[in-house]
């Protein structure tokens, strides 16, 4: 039973890895790599957010605040003060985690939409500070961020690299690096779900009162998962800053928070692979719709509405159960 469980988990990771490796066969220019890399990085952030939404049943309306804080911590410390990239990224994550803990701990004692309001406020406050402190952050016009420096080895999307005699462009390497990071993010998330913490979380999601009665410290578990999801956002934010090379306060803004939560719900709350699909769809959709010009907004709204009305569980879970049913019909067995 447990072995089988592990196999399913592992199989998911392998499929994701194969997809990441296969997609470049379809990519014909650096712009497409650019988009694909963005999907992989933002995908990491939504995998983290999904832990909170899918497994603790809480919504964050300010996750971009954590993402943006990570991005700006990296931008300021590596750019202005010349700190090394990796320790900066980790320190940034620690700072963001601490903020999340301070905010989350008192509020997660409560049941209901209160965390969404607190995160909304925190997200806004972070965005306002980033916007106003232009000495540090460049203000609303944004700031440049140096290329990612991996212990003395610089990864720039404009660079040219050679491994074992094979030449790689910087954007290709960034793509694979982001893919690796996403796999790591998924692996950690899966492990968390299978850990005692994960079991506690599922109990919280099932019925909080019941969980509390049998002695699960629900507030502790919820705060913990909130901190973890904020750390995910911070780290992916840092990576995003290095990858883009330029950040503006929009990365911490309310709009982006809404996009992140929409990715989770659209892809399928609770489904780690679903939310990655959600990230892909919401990143690509504006590019596809860009050719419709004035109709872009109407179509985007309509697609979002219709998808959620007819696939309320999200893309991947709905498609999955449809596929399951068809398979069952064909073989006459149980799905």
């Amino acid at each position, binding site marked *: 039973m447990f072995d089988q469980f592990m196999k399913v988990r592992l199989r998911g990771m392998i499929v994701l890895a194969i997809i990441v490796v*296969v*997609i470049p066969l379809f990519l014909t220019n650096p712009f497409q790599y650019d988009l694909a890399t963005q999907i992989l990085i933002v995908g990491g952030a939504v995998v983290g957010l999904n832990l909170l939404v899918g497994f603790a049943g809480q919504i964050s309306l300010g996750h971009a605040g954590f993402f943006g804080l990570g991005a700006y911590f990296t931008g300021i410390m590596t750019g202005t003060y010349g700190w090394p990239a990796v320790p900066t990224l980790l320190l940034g994550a620690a700072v963001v985690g601490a903020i999340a803990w301070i905010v989350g701990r008192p509020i997660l004692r409560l049941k209901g939409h209160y965390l969404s309001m607190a995160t909304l406020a925190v997200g806004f406050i972070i965005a306002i500070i980033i916007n106003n402190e232009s000495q540090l952050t460049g*203000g609303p*016009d944004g700031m440049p961020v140096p290329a990612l420096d991996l212990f003395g080895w610089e990864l720039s999307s404009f660079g040219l690299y050679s491994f074992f005699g094979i030449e790689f462009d910087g954007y290709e390497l960034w793509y694979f690096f982001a893919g690796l990071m996403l796999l790591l993010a998924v692996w950690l998330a899966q492990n968390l779900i299978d850990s005692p913490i994960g079991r506690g979380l599922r109990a919280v999601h099932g019925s909080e009162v019941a969980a509390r009665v049998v002695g699960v410290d629900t507030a502790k578990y919820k705060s913990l998962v909130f901190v973890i999801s904020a750390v995910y956002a911070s780290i992916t934010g840092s990576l995003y800053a290095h990858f883009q090379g*330029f950040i503006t306060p929009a990365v911490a803004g309310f709009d982006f928070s809404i996009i992140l939560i929409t990715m989770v719900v659209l892809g399928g709350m609770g489904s780690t692979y679903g939310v990655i699909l959600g990230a*892909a769809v919401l990143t*690509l959709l504006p590019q596809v719709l*860009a050719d419709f010009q004035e109709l872009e907004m109407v179509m985007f709204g309509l697609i979002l509405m219709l998808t959620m009305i007819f696939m309320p569980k999200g893309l991947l879970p709905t498609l999955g159960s449809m596929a*399951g049913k068809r398979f069952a019909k064909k073989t006459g067995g149980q*799905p």
Partner: protein
Amino acid sequence: MGMTILRRMAAATGITLLAAVFTMSAHAADPIKIGSFLSVTGPASFLGDPELKTLEMYVEQINENGGVLGRPLELIHYDDQGNASSARSFASRLIRSDRVDIIVGGSTTGATMASVPLVEQAGIPFISLAGAVVITDPVKKWVFKTPQSDRMAAERILEDMKDRGFTKIGLISGTGGFGASGRTQTLNVAKRMGMEIVADVTYSGSDTDMTAQLTNIRNTKGVEAVLNFGFGQGPAIVTRNYDQLGMKLPFYQSHGVASDSFLRLAGKAAEGLRLPGSPLLVPESIPEGDPQKNIVRNYKAEYEAKWGQSVSTFGGYAYDGLMLAVNALEAAGSTDKAAVRDALEGIQGYVGVTGEFNMSPDDHNGLDPDSFRILEVVNGGWVLID
């Protein structure tokens, strides 16, 4: 079992979607491709909207007259919605996927600056339509811009104040990119000119009432004139609140609101305020024989006839951007990017809607502060002061 299929489906969906986006490029390369990303919707739409309309109109007109270098122009444009990250994505798409020959766009400073690293690395001529001085100072090899910088606007306003004998200024500015950069430049210029900013307050884009901030300026001792640096509907609200509070101090706005629609919004409250603007708003006041007169008059007439709405300074930036591009293409005799860039840098004495452009290796803007005219609102219309 269902799980495997589910994943296969996911893979298939992902790949189809990716393929859908990624097969949209590739076309015969006969026309000259002009790429553009503008803030056509979103908070900066009053910049991007007239800019896009101008580009569309004149690309069509140029093509009817035989194009450039005997080739038609093709305008490829995207809406970045005022978001710098999407501006960067679209710049990437224009450069790497659409493979445009030159970019004319970037409504906001944020959008422009986010795209600069890509542009510089790819080596493609880029004419920005955004205002802040950081875009061309320090000079970037491939980046040019058509609007006067906000530093020039600040200089022009403060000079006019000084001429009228005001040296103590109350400053109110928006917290958006335009207002924040304008505020910084105003503080710097004031220091240099020996003037004093005695009150310094801000408002955000979502504010609907600035009475509290203005009350603070009113109650600050020694204020002799007030300047508002901002754009959008905010300055119109500031102007109305200013009037309601009965403030009588001389009032200045920035070039960010130099359009007739601002007058429509602010109504009679705008009476008597001054701002640096393009002669576009006062075509009839330009003396006969000034080479700018006909260009400005034609642009205004053509724009208003085609779109049925009043012309704005921002559309003029796009007009000049496109014409500079066309001039450079013709001077270079080809679409060779380095040659076009060199031609852009060599442009001398091109008279556009915004002013006369004299580019050089040290100046990728090419305008001088006098291209700003000081205008005053009199009887609900613009009057040329200086």
